[in-house]
C-alpha cells in the first residue's frame, strides 16, 4: 500500500516535444498569462526569499552579535564562535553525537533498509504485512518514538531491564550518559531503516526484469546480479538515500528532545540551537552561531556529494 503512490506518480521523462509545445502555448496566451505567471512564480519566489534566504542571512548576521531579544543588539565579532569552541561544553558532545548519528544511520540503518527492501521485493509470503511493520515507525513521529523508547528503556519500570532479568541491578539506559546515545540510536535506526526500505522498494519495483533475466542467462549468480546489475540501476535512489541520511542525521532533534530535552549525553546541535534561542534563555546571538555551524556543515555535506554526482554524470 505504502509503495503504490511512489510508483504511480512516476512522471514521464521530459522530452523535447513537450518543451516545444509549452513554448508555443506561452506565446499564444502571453498577454493574459503574464500576470498569472508573475503571481504563480512570484509568490513562491518571494516566500523563498523571505522565509529561507532572508532568515539565513539574518541568522548569519545575528551570530556575530549578543542579543537577548529585548535590549539593543551588540556586535561582538567572533566571540560567540570562540566561546562555543572553547568553553561551551555541550558543543563538542553534540558534534560527536551528530557524527555518530550520521555514521550509524549511514552504515547500519541504510544497509538494513536496503536489505529489507531486497527481501520484500522477492514477494515472500506476507510481504505487505512486513512492509507495514517496517514502515510503521516512519509514520510515527519521532516524539512518539521517544516516548516508546522511554517505556522500553526506563531504569525503574522499563521492559528491557525486566527482559534482561536485571531487576535488582537495572541498567540506566537513558540516564547513563555513556550508553544513552546508543539506546536512542537503536530507536533512530528502527525508524530510518523503514524510511530507506520504502525508497528502495519503490526503486526495485521499477528495475526492468529483463535486466535480471539477461544477467541470469549470462551466468551471474544472485549476488552478482544484485551488486553488478540491479544496484547500479538504483543509482538515482542511492543519491536520494545518501542525501536524506545526511540530512536526517544533522537535523535529528525530536527523539532526544522527547527523552530528556537533549541533555546529559544526548546533546545534538539542533537541540543546542533551540535551548539557546527558543527557551527562556534568549541567547539569540549565541544560538545563531551554533545554527550557522550546523548550516555550514549540512551545506558542506550536500554540496560535496552533489558536485561529485554531477561530475560523474558528465563523464
Amino acid at each position: 500500500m505504502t509503495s503504490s503512490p511512489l510508483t504511480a506518480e512516476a512522471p514521464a521523462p521530459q522530452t523535447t516535444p513537450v518543451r516545444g509545445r509549452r513554448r508555443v502555448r506561452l506565446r499564444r496566451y502571453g498577454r493574459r498569462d503574464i500576470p498569472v505567471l508573475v503571481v504563480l512564480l512570484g509568490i513562491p519566489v518571494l516566500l523563498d526569499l523571505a522565509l529561507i534566504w532572508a532568515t539565513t542571512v539574518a541568522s548569519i548576521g545575528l551570530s556575530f552579535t549578543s542579543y537577548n531579544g529585548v535590549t539593543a543588539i551588540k556586535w561582538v565579532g567572533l566571540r560567540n564562535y570562540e566561546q562555543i569552541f572553547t568553553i561551551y561544553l555541550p558543543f563538542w558532545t553534540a558534534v560527536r553525537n551528530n557524527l555518530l548519528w550520521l555514521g550509524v544511520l549511514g552504515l547500519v540503518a541504510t544497509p538494513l533498509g536496503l536489505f529489507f527492501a531486497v527481501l520484500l521485493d522477492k514477494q515472500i509470503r506476507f510481504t505487505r504485512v512486513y512492509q507495514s511493520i517496517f514502515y510503521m515507525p516512519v509514520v510515527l513521529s519521532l516524539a512518539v518514538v521517544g516516548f516508546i523508547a522511554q517505556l522500553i528503556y526506563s531504569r525503574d519500570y522499563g521492559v528491557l531491564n525486566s527482559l534482561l532479568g536485571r531487576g535488582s541491578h537495572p541498567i540506566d539506559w537513558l540516564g547513563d550518559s555513556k550508553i544513552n546515545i546508543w539506546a536512542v540510536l537503536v530507536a533512530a535506526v528502527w525508524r530510518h531503516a523503514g524510511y530507506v526500505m520504502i525508497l528502495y522498494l519503490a526503486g526495485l519495483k521499477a528495475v526492468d526484469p529483463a535486466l535480471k533475466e539477461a544477467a541470469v542467462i549470462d551466468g551471474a549468480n544472485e549476488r552478482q546480479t544484485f551488486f553488478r546489475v540491479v544496484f547500479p540501476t538504483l543509482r538515482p535512489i542511492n543519491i536520494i538515500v545518501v542525501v536524506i541520511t545526511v540530512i536526517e542525521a544533522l537535523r535529528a532533534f525530536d527523539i532526544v528532545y522527547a527523552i530528556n530535552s537533549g541533555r546529559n549525553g544526548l546533546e545534538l546541535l539542533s537541540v543546542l540551537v533551540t535551548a539557546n534561542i527558543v527557551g527562556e534563555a534568549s541567547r539569540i546571538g549565541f544560538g545563531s552561531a551554533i545554527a550557522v555551524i550546523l548550516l555550514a556543515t549540512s551545506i558542506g555535506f550536500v554540496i560535496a556529494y552533489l558536485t561529485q554526482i554531477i561530475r560523474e554524470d558528465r563523464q
Partner: protein
Amino acid sequence: MSRSPADRPGGLPMTSRRSILRGALAGASAFAVPAALAACGKSDTGSGSGGSTNKNVTFGSNYSDDVPKKAIADVMAKMQSDKGYTVKVNTVDHNSFQENITRYLQGSPDDVFTWFAGFRMQYFAAQGLATPIDDVWQTIGANYSDAFKKASTGQDGKMYFVPFYNYPWALFYRKSVFEAKGYQIPKTIDEFKTLCAKIKTDGMVPIGFADKDGWPAFGTFDQLNMRMNGYDFHVALMAGKQSWTDPKVKNVFDLWAGLLPYHQPGSLGRTWQDAAQGLVSKQSAMYLLGSFVAQQFQPADLPDLDFFAFPEVDSQYGQDAVEAPIDGFMISHKAKNVAGAKELLKFLGSADAQNVYLKSDPSDVGANKQADASGYNAIQKKAATFIGEAKQISQFLDRDSNPTFASTVAIPAFQQFINSPGDIDSLLKNVDAQAKSIYAAGN
C-alpha cells in the same frame, strides 16, 4: 525507464532542506511565536456585562493544569462578583509560557501575567517589560512580610510583583517509616550522614533523587550552599557577583559528592514524579523537594507525610535560610488597562483571593499574612510556620539567577557532576568562565 521512481522521492530532500534551514534559522522565526502563543490561549472569559471599557482586564496565565486552572477561574469569578471587573483569562501551557516569555512580553501581552519572584522578575523589570506598581503595594503592603516585599522589589527599588502563594523546599519523609525504624530527625550534617548510613543498611534508599529534567538538583545545591556559606553568599553567587571557582563553592560540591552515595542511583533518567513514588511506596526514606511532592500522595496517605529543614552544616548559618519560591503576578509594560490591572493585582494580593485559590491546593501556602489558615492541611500549616520563621527566604537557583545561566550552563554542569563527581575543579572553572560571559553580556 528506471529513472522514474527516483524523480518522485526527489521532492523529499527539498522539504528536508527547507526544514533544516528553518531549524537553523530558529532565531528569526522565533519572532513569529507571540502570535502563535496568543492564538494558543484559550479564552475562559466569565463573560457577562460589557460595562465600561476600564472594567475589562486581560490575564495571561500559566496555570495550565486542570486543578489550578479551575482555581484561577474561581478567583476571577470572585473578582467579577466582588468588584465588577471582567477578567479575560488566556491560559498557556506552563512550560511554553516560560519559554516564550520574552517574546510574549514584547508582542501583545495581556495586562496582567503570571510570573515568579526574585532575580527572574527583576531581569524582566530591568529591561522595561513590566509596569511598576508601588501604588498597589501601598494598599496591600501591610499584609506582607519584609521577605515577600524584598522578593517583589526590582533592582531600581520599585515594586513590580504581587505574591500569590509560595511553598517550601525541605526534606520530606513518612512519619510511619521513621517511627517504625526509630529514626530521629537529624539536626546537623553529621547526624544526617549517620542516619543515611543506617537507612542504607536497613535496605532503603536514604534520599530519593531525580534529575532528568535538570532542575531538581538545583534544590540540593541551594540547600547545601546556604547551609555551608550562608544566604548572602548564595544570593551573590546567583547574581553573578561571586566566582564559581571560589573555594567555598568547591567545598559545597565536595560535601555533595560525599552525600551522593546516599542518593537514589540512576537519577539522570528519572523524573521527580517517579522519585516521589519511591517515597510514597516507602522505598526511599527521605526526599529533598518542594512541598508539591504532596501532589503525588493519595489523600489517605497525606497525613503520614511530614518534613524537616535541611540539617545545619555551619553553626554560623544554622538553619536560618529557607528556600520558598514565590509565584505571583506582574503588569506588562504594554498593558492596555493599567488602572484595571492594578485593581486586579490589589484583589489578587488580598487574603480573599488567595483563600479561594488555596481551597483546591494541597501543598501551597498563601502569601498574604491574613490568608485563612483554617482550611490548611497539616503540611500547609507546618509550611506556613516554617516559612514564617525563616530569617532569609531564597527563591530557587533558576529564579535567583540569570535564566540563560540556569538553563544552558547550570543544568549540564550539575548533571555532569552527578555523573562523575570526581572532576569538580575543571567543571567549576568552566562554569565560572561561562557565567562571567553570560552575566557580562547582560543576557
